[in-house]
């Protein structure tokens, strides 16, 4: 009896020793991130592919942008992800760099009998008036004038918004605040706002099910969500005065037209950008990293991963209906890495030699 238990003990000791020698290696082979829920599906897909290729794991917790910002400031994670860019002052105070990793957009969706996807045309100002509760019926003169061929019913407009705080609401209200002064004053721009009309659903799926449920309703969801669920989206008039449909090209056009160089810390919202093809409610998710990382090797691995994602990840992004960052912007981002992310000795953490084929 005693002998067996001794043997077990010895075995346990050996095993734990064995583990002890393995564990540090594993710890070095995982980088931790936290933040935006919007970016989670594509980050998870990238991380999985990257791990089978290199053995390096990326552990991402989708706790929300607010949580991601808090975690990176508290230095508990290697990188944070936020749908709302931090301004240059906040970045400097916390010693962070910021760069866009992936794009998406927000699409107005409606539930109207006899109206097909893409048939309804809207302008930013009209959309703002609907969400302000000023335009309340579908056969309103302004709507009818814009949509001569479309049969608009004499029904009340049921306005649906996001009840939970989200990057989607941030981008949407950012756009409406840009195009309508009244919207900016009365409602404003944030991850959650005090809506003046309608009901609120939780998450994209909550908004979508309310829109499906209520006749004559209008809501806003992420582009990927509208596409995958074949929802009746509306066309929007962009800054150039053209009506555009939500599709990968129109989102990339918005990113390409944006003046990234003039925006320190990539603090740039892609809403209402110039360009004939630009979709006006476009947004990006931003990665946050410490300029002087606590663990240089972790930050280096993270940058290698993001570089790989920029170069090899576009197909995966397309498959999940995300919009990849244009190559011209990637060049700017990597130049920032070289300049700003340094180890304790002031040496750049990222070099071109680290690019993986």
């Amino acid at each position, binding site marked *: 009896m005693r002998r067996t238990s001794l043997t077990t003990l010895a075995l346990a000791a050996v095993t734990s020793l064995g583990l002890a020698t393995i564990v540090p290696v594993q710890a070095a082979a995982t980088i931790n991130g936290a933040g935006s*829920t919007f970016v989670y599906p594509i980050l998870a897909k990238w991380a999985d592919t990257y791990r089978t290729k290199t053995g390096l794991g990326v552990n991402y917790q989708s*706790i*929300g*942008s*607010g*949580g991601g*910002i808090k975690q990176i400031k508290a230095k508990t994670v290697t990188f944070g992800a936020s749908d*709302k860019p931090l301004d240059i002052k906040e970045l400097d105070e916390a010693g962070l760099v910021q760069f866009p990793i992936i794009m998406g957009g927000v699409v107005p969706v409606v539930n109207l009998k006899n109206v097909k996807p893409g048939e309804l045309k809207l302008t930013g100002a009209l959309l703002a008036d609907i969400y302000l509760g000023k335009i309340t019926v579908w056969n309103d003169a302004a709507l009818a004038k814009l949509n001569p061929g479309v049969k608009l019913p004499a029904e*009340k407009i*049921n306005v649906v918004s996001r*009840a*939970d*705080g*989200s*990057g989607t609401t941030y981008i949407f209200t950012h756009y409406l605040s840009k195009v309508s002064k009244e919207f900016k004053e009365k*409602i*404003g*721009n*944030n*991850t*959650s*706002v*005090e*809506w003046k009309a*309608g*009901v*609120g*659903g*939780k998450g994209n799926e*909550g908004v979508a*099910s*309310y829109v499906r*449920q*209520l006749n004559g309703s209008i809501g806003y969801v992420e582009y990927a969500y509208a596409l995958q669920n074949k929802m009746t989206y509306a066309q929007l008039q962009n800054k150039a005065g053209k009506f555009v449909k939500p599709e990968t090209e129109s989102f990339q056009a918005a990113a390409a037209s944006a003046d990234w160089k003039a925006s320190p810390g990539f603090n740039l919202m892609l809403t209402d950008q110039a360009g004939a093809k630009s979709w006006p409610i476009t947004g990006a998710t931003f990665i946050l990293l410490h300029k002087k990382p606590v663990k240089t090797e972790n930050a280096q691995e993270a940058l290698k991963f993001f570089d790989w994602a920029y170069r090899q990840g576009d197909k995966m992004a397309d498959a999940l209906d995300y919009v990849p960052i244009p190559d011209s912007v990637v060049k700017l981002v990597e130049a920032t890495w070289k300049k700003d992310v340094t180890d304790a000795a002031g040496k750049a953490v990222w070099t071109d030699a680290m690019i993986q084929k």
Partner: protein
Amino acid sequence: MMRGPYGAPHFHLPDKKNILTMATGQSEIPDSVLKRQRLMDRAFHATTAVAAGIVLILLVGIIISLFIGSWQALSTFGFGFVTTDAWNPVTEKFGALVPIYGTLVSSLIAIVIAVPISLGIAVFLTEVSPEWLRRPIGTAVELLAAIPSIIYGMWGLFLFAPVLANHVQPWLQSTFGDTPVIGALFQGAPLGIGMLPAGIILGIMIIPFITAIMRDVFLTVPKFLKESAYGLGATTWEVVWNVVLPYTRMATVGGIFLGLGRALGETMAITFIIGNTHRLSASLFEPGNSIASTLANEFTEAVGDAHTSSLIALGLVLFLITFIVLSLAKLLLMSLNQRSGKKS
């Protein structure tokens, strides 16, 4: 003196030494054995005391952390936090009136719906139903309690809301819409989403809880009381109204309060169907918000400190409301135990 199951007083338990003496027939047990047993006994007591203590520590810890977390909001907005209806994350002005109102009103609707139905089920199960039917119905009610709340929410939104919007709400509107005072409760577009639908779903959710308690307390009514009443020619209704209910009044009310406590804290089902809008409205057809669903919706993406702190303060308010309701329930149940103890 303690009472056994039949009301007879227990004999004082003989101490351990005597039991052992009786069992072994020996007159003396070595002191070392006794000492060890005493020690183990003490260790056992200490262990259980620690386990119980952990609960208290947790409770106090939660209260303290709620206070610390909500301090910023409470010190900024003061008492106005519970009396103002603004909830604006952009301007960082927060008042809890809308969620408090939504929580109380939806729970009130739930109670108004659940109490009569639960009473009916409990009376049927204890007085009217034939013996063979009691178990299946009782089990069905218990199963209803086991359904996760998110299922109720989804059922409410996808199946119940359209029925409500197309049939029930228009009927309510045409029947009561023009009545003074209560007419105001039934104004607005019938969406199937809002305060009334949320209250109805909540009501369905708490029926099993209230029913279970009512049935159990109705069963405590002594047979001879009911049989005497029947002997005097009372009908079943008269027995229920004049004998069963007065005898169990306090416990019944206690059970209702327990159901209310559950309704107040319910989150997912409400989030699906209340409409999640921070607007105060007299009409029960309009969307509103409850404390629990505001927390569920906004906590993850609350970026500003004032927003986070206000949400924690909302949690504190909910904690206080539930605490008051549950204490009342406990008090009522306690007073019943004392009374029935004296009577029997």
